């Protein structure tokens, strides 16, 4: 009610604001709408000039073609393994490290913490060459472990967990210790339930990030059977540049985007809030 001061008074003002809001929504929505309709167009309709704004004779041929021309199902599974593995690992390492940085006191703690946070701003491209060399010389290139290893822990996760665990009352942890609970049990039974929204946020963030990560798998994987879906899509893209194949690629893009979109939409209430507070706290 205190915000009523800015509530537009005239109908004209209200209308203008709603028109702006619709534009703000339409700009991100249009390409997504276009992705969906193009996936169900026939190749001939897809390249027609001027473009049609709704498929006149919808077909599933392109989707089927995308799924069968390349090992799409296998690469979706690979993406689940890679993104799922990285997510679980980052959750575990970040919660444990975040707990130590939030609740323990030891010399050099802050220096150690901020040094880790600094790595958040280091683009992966800067260390790509030696990282490739290291993983290859460990004999892990072209393996799931090689894809996963550099992403098993990260600074953003530790930062996020530490910020939220700092808000967990010390008294609660102290009381659990009095009851003889081990530190490990304290973390899982008392701390994690209290910071659930932050844990969900980190999980979704890491899943999306790993699902979409392109540069590292491109660098380290050779065997197509291990390709995550983004690399398979790349192969599909370079398969042929012919126009009548373009919307098979689009159908592939639609399928590859669904898992992260679904995960995001299911968790959006908690996730958007979590990302927002990561900025406020940071």
């Amino acid at each position: 009610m205190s915000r009523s001061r800015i509530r537009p008074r005239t109908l004209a003002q209200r209308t203008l604001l709603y028109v702006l809001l619709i534009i703000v929504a339409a700009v991100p929505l249009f390409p997504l709408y276009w992705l969906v309709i193009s996936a169900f167009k026939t190749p001939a309709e897809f390249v027609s000039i001027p473009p049609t704004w709704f498929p006149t004779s919808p077909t599933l041929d392109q989707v089927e073609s995308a799924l069968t021309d390349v090992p799409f199902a296998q690469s979706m599974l690979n993406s689940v393994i890679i993104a799922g593995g990285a997510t679980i690992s980052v959750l575990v390492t970040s919660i444990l490290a975040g707990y130590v940085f939030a609740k323990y006191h030891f010399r050099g703690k802050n220096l150690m913490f901020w040094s880790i946070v600094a790595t958040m701003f280091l683009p992966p491209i800067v260390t790509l060459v030696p990282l490739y060399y290291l993983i290859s010389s460990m004999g892990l290139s072209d393996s799931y472990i090689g894809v996963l290893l550099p992403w098993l822990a990260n600074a953003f996760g530790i930062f996020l967990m530490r910020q939220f665990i700092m808000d967990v009352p010390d008294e609660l942890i102290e009381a659990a210790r009095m009851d003889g609970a081990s530190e490990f049990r304290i973390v899982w039974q008392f701390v994690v339930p209290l910071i659930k929204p932050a844990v969900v946020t980190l999980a979704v963030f890491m899943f999306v990030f790993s699902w979409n990560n392109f540069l590292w798998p491109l660098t380290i994987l050779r065997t197509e059977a291990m390709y995550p879906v983004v690399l398979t899509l790349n192969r599909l893209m370079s398969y042929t540049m012919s126009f009548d194949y373009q919307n098979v690629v689009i159908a592939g893009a639609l399928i590859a985007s669904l898992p992260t979109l679904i995960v995001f939409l299911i968790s959006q209430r908690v996730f958007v809030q979590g990302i927002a507070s990561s900025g406020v706290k940071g």
Partner: protein
Amino acid sequence: MNVTSTPTVGGSVRSLPRPRRRRTDRAHRGITAAIFLSPTLLVIGLFTVVPMIMTIVISFHRWSMFTPITDMDFVGFDNYARLLNDSARVQAIANTGVYVLLSVLITVPLAFLIAMLLYFPRLRGRNVVRVILFATYVIPTIAIVIIWSNIYAPGYGPLSAMVQAIGLTPPGWLSDPQWALLSLVIFNVWQMLGYYVILLVAGLTQIPEELYEAAKVDGAGIVRQTWSITLPMLSGSLVFVVLMTIINSIQVFDPIYLLTQGGPAGSTNVVSFEIQRSAFQYGQAGDASALAVSLFMLIVLVGVVLNAILKVRKR
């Protein structure tokens, strides 16, 4: 902690065997801390810190990636000198600068205005719009590349159709050296905008309501309120958004690799693409590392400058 500091029972607690138990607890907790931290320190140490040091070392050597690392030769600052004399690499740095600058100049004001629109007038449906805006952020870049390469397509692409509909001649978005980099910036803004809007809306919620009430009593209009209250109070979030925009756009790789391969005529060649190409296509790990170190130094410089701005603002 609470028990020992309670004055009435303080003495008796101290006489109990508790202190000894606490000391072993502390030792035990030291071990716990080491156990809890070790996976993180191992991963970040081995796969971030060590490679960072190696990048710096390699940048002073000549090393073909197709030969063992033990074969590399020390060449001092040669790689850096060559970098400055190589027009393709200089252009890559310049393009990256333009790309970052345009991204910041478009993204930050736009995100600020949209955040204001989504926060202040309590419009119906604003939460749905927030989710829609953020949705573009979670889609794989390659999928977005595929969408946009077709939206930009000449002839059957919808963007050209729209531009023609208002009576203009559409440019060759990705094929015209004048337009290609800007087209990639538009693509980047479209993908990332929702994330920054969310961060700024969160910043707006932190501004105390009373400030606006007081300003209103003083007769300040919406422009004055924005200028004197919103912008200064939001400066922390704004600097953070500027930093994130710079960090994200300075390392742009996927769309360049997938869409333009640096072309046409080198107009979209950027530092990360040049690093990847030098190292993995030409095998010139020394040159690639010199470029990588330069990129790293640029990011450090950005961090220092933004930090200084934030400190001056606070004074």
